[in-house]
């Protein structure tokens, strides 16, 4: 299994541009998550999904959108990029069941700079 795969690894955007961060997992996990990681801060949840067709906001959803058309894919869309969105973005997934007690499996991240 490749696990959780994120593309691209790096991206530089100009203010106002848009882009989609791709995330795919091959573990047949129902739950998928998008986090951002800023220096000196813990991971902050942007959006999450409990299954295909179902998404919900996390702690910091403003400026982002997601979709979940398949179990495998969970892309994150940035519209009108702003410097405050400069960050490292991580996608994660986990299986359902286990009384909801299962660790998140993370991708290797997308480092985004908005200038």
């Amino acid at each position, binding site marked *: 299994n490749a696990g*959780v795969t994120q593309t691209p690894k790096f991206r530089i955007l100009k203010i106002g541009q848009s882009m989609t961060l791709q995330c795919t997992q091959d573990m047949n996990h129902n739950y998928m998550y998008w986090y951002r990681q800023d220096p000196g801060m813990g991971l902050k949840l942007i959006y999450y999904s409990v299954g295909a067709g179902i998404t919900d906001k996390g702690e910091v959803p403003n400026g982002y959108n997601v979709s979940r058309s398949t179990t495998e894919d969970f892309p994150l869309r940035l519209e009108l990029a702003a410097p405050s969105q400069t960050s490292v973005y991580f996608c994660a997934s986990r299986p359902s069941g286990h009384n909801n007690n299962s660790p998140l499996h993370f991708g290797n991240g997308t480092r985004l700079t908005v200038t």
Partner: protein
Amino acid sequence: GESVGLHLPTLSVQEGDNSIINCAYSNSASDYFIWYKQESGKGPQFIIDIRSNMDKRQGQRVTVLLNKTVKHLSLQIAATQPGDSAVYFCAAKLPSGTYKYIFGTGTRLKVLA
């Protein structure tokens, strides 16, 4: 709001010594805890987890201790090796909802040769 914090931003240990990384959480309702290792340029990697009905859990060279009375979690790494150099952070999950993992900021472990 809920928080998870680590006691030291940086920890330096001699190769071969044991390392102890500490974490405190604020919400006593947290029912599941995870330790992650993050190397530079990579995503967090699962190390070990523990449920709230346990006090201790051991893995290969790692042990997690949970003290619910003082809301404290620790990760012990035995015989620390250069490959253990990384940022370590803990996460706590609340029992309600399917997404509420609260992440700490991390402790950078430096292994001295």
